[in-house]
């Protein structure tokens, strides 16, 4: 592992990690982040660069069309040198560029699933599989939603055998904590095994 030269102060170099919390709209991403950390808003204005962007814009203000992407994130600090950031993906899946930004260098991802709308998390599963970002699937147990065995969900999502899938309650701190622990353990196990096989036949849509 080519450890980059630390530019930090002598002693404990700061290390920051990020975990992406993904899933369909309204599946409880913010709830999960909020259960274990203080949620803070983050937004960006992305310039929709296309025609007409040049160096000759003398007006001094951005005249390009921009679109606002709202996200939120949480931060957990361990000791005085480790910081873990949890980023929820933007609700609208058309903001794929933001997914790239969030996933770059991410430790791993939690995909939240709702058994009533399992198909909503297919894009996230595909996304992280293609980019070889290790992930776990956490099935958020909404009140009144049918309970399924996580193994059935595993099959329905056509997950790799090694990918963990568990039930969780995104509102509960301890449950959120267990999901994160499971992810970090999975990341460590994957790294130790030194593999992440390319795979996945076309998933047959459930929804």
């Amino acid at each position, binding site marked *: 592992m080519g450890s980059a030269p630390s530019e930090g102060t002598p002693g404990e170099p700061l290390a920051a990690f*990020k975990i992406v919390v993904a899933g369909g709209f309204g599946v409880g991403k913010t709830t999960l982040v909020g259960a274990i950390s203080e949620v803070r808003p983050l937004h*960006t204005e992305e310039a929709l*660069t296309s025609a007409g962007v040049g160096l000759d814009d003398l007006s001094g203000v951005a005249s390009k069309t921009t679109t606002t992407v709202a996200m939120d994130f949480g931060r957990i600090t361990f000791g005085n040198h480790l910081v873990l950031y949890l980023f929820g993906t933007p609700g609208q899946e058309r903001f794929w560029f933001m997914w790239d930004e969030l996933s770059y260098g991410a430790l791993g991802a939690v995909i939240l699933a709702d058994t009533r709308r399992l198909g909503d998390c297919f894009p996230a599963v595909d996304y992280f599989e293609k980019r070889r970002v290790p992930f776990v699937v956490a099935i958020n147990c909404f009140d009144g939603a049918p309970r399924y065995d996580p193994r059935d969900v595993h099959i329905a999502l056509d997950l790799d055998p090694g990918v963990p899938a568990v039930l969780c309650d995104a509102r509960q701190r301890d449950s959120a904590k267990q999901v994160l622990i499971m992810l970090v353990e999975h990341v460590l196990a994957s790294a130790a095994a030194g593999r992440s096989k390319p795979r996945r036949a076309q998933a047959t849509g459930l929804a």
Partner: protein
Amino acid sequence: MSAGGNWDARDPGPVVRPYAVTGGRTEPAGGEVLDLITIVVASGKAAAADDPMGFTPEHRRILRLCQQPAAVADLASDTGLPLGVVRVLLADIILQGRITVLQRRGGERPRADLLKEVLHGLRAL
């Protein structure tokens, strides 16, 4: 010539357009786009006497927040400024040597020993 009924009832949009505080620039000076969790800190270097550009209030706010190490995402959240804007302003200050990058997050996989520390930390929560 009537001025029309309700011109003042329309949503005028943001009072300051997002990239007005960067002078319309959408790309960070120097070209490096800092990752969300890249950690930066004020260097303690004083402002150059012949500061050619002059910092805006937004530059100074970011500089103040960097008295303690902060991630790019923290700065965007704390200032309420769009992420892209914070990156542009941050790059200006870095170019002047008044903020330095403490930890540059790349696309490499995190080190196993640090991950184990994170794991222990999570278990102890």
